């Protein structure tokens, strides 16, 4: 039984915090290869923004923004981005995940191409981790039922 506890203060504060949370999560992902941070850490922060919505409002409210099917599809998309960058490197001619060869198709030099490759991979990891965190939470909280809960 999930009861919605309506309180104006909690709802407003959490609603104001969410864009800052997501911006900070994107910041952590983008600065991962240059300072502490990275794909997994940023993905957890992005996922926690959706979970904050689910905790402060109602699980149906969070499901409007990230339903379980959407979370599953995003998780797969993240891994496909990761593997896809590796396969692109393989198809151009170098070994798997050898980002240096990307300088032949992108208009940058060799060191910059490696940094771009790592950034692309971290973005894929971040999307997957965000989707998996939300999916684990939705599954556990609904008791494995995945149905719409009646709001009391």
């Amino acid at each position, binding site marked *: 039984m999930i009861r919605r506890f309506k309180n104006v203060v909690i709802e407003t504060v959490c609603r104001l915090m969410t864009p800052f949370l997501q911006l900070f999560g994107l910041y952590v992902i983008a600065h991962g290869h*240059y*300072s*502490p941070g*990275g794909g*997994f850490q940023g993905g957890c922060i992005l996922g926690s923004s959706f979970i904050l919505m689910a905790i402060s409002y109602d699980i149906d409210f969070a499901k409007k923004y990230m339903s379980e099917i959407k979370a599953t599809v995003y998780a797969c998309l993240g891994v496909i981005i990761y593997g896809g960058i590796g396969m692109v490197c393989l198809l151009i001619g170098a070994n798997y995940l050898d980002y240096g060869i990307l300088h032949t198709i992108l208009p940058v030099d060799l060191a910059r191409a490696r940094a771009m490759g790592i950034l692309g991979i971290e973005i894929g990891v971040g999307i997957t*981790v965000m989707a*998996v965190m939300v999916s*684990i939470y939705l*599954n*556990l909280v609904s*008791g*494995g039922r995945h149905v719409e809960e009646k709001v009391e």
Partner: protein
Amino acid sequence: MDFIITKYHYWFYVSLMMVGLYAMIVKKNFVKKLVGMNIFQTSIILFFVSSATKIHATIPIIQETEGIINPAHYMNPLPHVLMLTAIVVMVSSFGVALALLIMIYKKYKTLDEDEILDIMRNKQ
């Protein structure tokens, strides 16, 4: 005595590991066993990360104005990266275990090991 004082951090990790192992073996509730497993894995992560430090070293990020760098001034980043992977493994096995516990609860209506064994014995 010197043996204990200079290596105090290893004693700490081993005692955490033993707390986790004790919880897994002795506690009757499945969720407590799972928390024990989590403590066990966390102590291994602490052990690895502690092996990366050096005396008077700083974080392994190079500023652009450095000339020739001396590796003894920077901490070793490789165990940190390995432990990122291990933390991901820990979280995903915890998630799978919790989903399994929901399935067990739906069937037996309890999460206590003794009661579940009683129900299984009475069914046969």
